[in-house]
């Protein structure tokens, strides 16, 4: 038995390797996805190692250093409080990562739960859940997010919860369509024939199949989430000072745009870069996951 056991491990590893090799191959073929991955990895690395990378305290006010243009000491310059923009941007990456995680978890969870339940059961349940989804879809998103963030209290994370409470609709529709497609496939019927209950089918068999399109969708939405958060900041509803949230930095620096361009421009570029990264990656994953290409 023991040797068999190890055999199993070997073959299993080999198989995962195969799968990975395929994915890796497709990924390497897809240059943009590669660039996207590099950007995102870079971004996450920044967030993780922020204290090591950032040369200064991101929130420390030092008025004697205010509004310095980019130089060797402050490569992105400083803002009106003498805070090092580079350090703020680096620490800001942590906030953005937090935003992304929260939204993914919340809107992903709600969206999938609603979507697959509606898609799998169909009928009245579907009708009710989809009408609820319609309500949230028809609701002006920014307004709902604003209202919710006013309701929940201030702060980036509350704003993000608000955004996710709004953003699940897309995921719900997507996973509903996916669940509907999958539930009529023969293998689900075969599992039902084995005597599996609805819950088992839903959680063990349909849910995993809905994950990858949902993940693609989520990765594509990351960008718009960061931007919505930044937009809330522009309207004064986002991050609380002195949180170095990128959108807030851009929007605070806008009155300096003509002369102290660096305050807005660097965080702006970072937002654009990361959003671009997520979009490229999302597009890439979609291509890679595409069964017609994968086969």
């Amino acid at each position, binding site marked *: 038995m023991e040797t068999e056991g190890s055999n199993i491990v070997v073959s299993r590893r080999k198989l995962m390797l195969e799968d990975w*090799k*395929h994915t890796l*191959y*497709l990924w390497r*073929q897809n240059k943009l996805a590669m660039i996207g991955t590099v950007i995102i990895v870079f971004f996450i690395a920044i967030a993780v190692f922020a204290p090591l990378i950032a040369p200064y305290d991101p929130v420390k006010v030092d008025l004697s250093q205010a509004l310095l243009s980019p130089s060797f000491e402050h490569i992105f310059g400083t803002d009106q409080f003498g805070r090092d923009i580079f350090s703020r941007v680096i620490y800001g990456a942590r906030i953005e990562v937090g935003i992304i995680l929260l939204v993914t978890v919340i809107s992903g969870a709600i969206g999938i739960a609603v979507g697959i339940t509606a898609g799998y059961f169909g009928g009245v349940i579907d009708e009710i859940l989809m009408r609820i989804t319609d309500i949230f879809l028809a609701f002006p998103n920014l307004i709902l997010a604003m209202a919710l963030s006013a309701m929940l209290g201030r702060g980036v994370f509350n704003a993000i919860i608000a955004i996710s409470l709004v953003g699940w609709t897309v995921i719900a529709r997507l996973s509903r369509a996916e669940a509907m497609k999958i539930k009529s496939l023969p293998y689900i019927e075969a599992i039902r024939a084995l005597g599996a209950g609805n819950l088992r089918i839903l959680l063990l068999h349909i849910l995993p199949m809905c994950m990858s399109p949902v993940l693609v969708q989520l990765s594509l939405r990351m960008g718009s989430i960061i931007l919505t958060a930044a937009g809330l900041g522009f309207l004064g509803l986002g991050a609380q000072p002195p949180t170095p949230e990128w959108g807030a930095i851009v929007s605070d620096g806008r009155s300096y745009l003509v002369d102290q361009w660096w305050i807005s421009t660097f965080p702006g570029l970072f937002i654009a870069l990361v959003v671009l990264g997520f979009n490229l990656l999302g597009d890439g994953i979609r291509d890679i996951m595409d069964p017609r290409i994968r086969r």
Partner: protein
Amino acid sequence: MKRLLDVSDLRVMFHTYRGTIKALNGVRLWLNEEERLGIVGETGCGKSVSALSIMRLIDPPGEITDGEIVFEGLDLLKMSEEEMDKSVRGKKISMIFQEPVSALNPVFKVGFQIAEAIAHSNDISMDEAYKKVPESLEMVGLDWKRSMELYPHELSGGMAQRVMIAMALAVKPKLLIADEPTSALDVTIQAQILQLLDELVRMGKNAVILITHDLGIASEFCDRITVMYAGNVIEVSDSQEVFQSPLHPYSKGLINSIPIIGASKVLRGIPGSVPDLVSPPPGCRFHPRCEFCFDRCRVELPDLREVKPDHFVACHLYSDDSKEG
């Protein structure tokens, strides 16, 4: 009879992550005018790829790496895309595909799609082409007034295949390639379509390449049969002959696998499965599944040679030296 098509040493590869799939490995096909050739073989053996190669419709990651496709004396592989469009595709050669409903464009009416083919083949305007559509539809037994105005999704499988046939034959091609034209249809409809095709081809004096995995169809419809295996042509012969006295062990195995009504024989099947074309076995590609396999089969790829009049086979069992040895 005049030689219409001569394909020799055709090699096609698909570049994929797993490596290069050697889909066709020196395929040889030939066809005279008005002749009907059947290509049979298991799934994945390269039937469709051969057909698409003749039309030069192999897309990346596929690539025709070698060979000659001489049609009416011209090598199609040396032609430019424009020349292919201008003088071959939809003019001298036309094609019918397996899934008739999905092979028609869902957003255009049937009439339009047929007219388009006619317009291109005769170099006439669409308006003029429209005038010829009823004729083609009637030819395949459809009520033209009604069917012209239908969208493909409103057709049943049988009707759609009739439309495809009308479209393919409206251009009066020298060669009609039919890639599994009836596999998606029901038995009774399949019989109808084959009968129709038979009549029309006889009338139009078209040469036909019929691709199928159903040997029964091939034997009833075709004059000559080519058996393919894993990218190679392994046997070519008159259609009666192949069934009555197959030579290649693979052909034999195939024929022994077919259940026949009333013939209470034991179905044997062929052990093993089709090789992976990324790393096909060396030598004869069939040797791992072959019960008569000997050393030479493992190293040397057999040529297609004429062992009886008009009966070609690629197997070392029938090569001269093996007889000696």
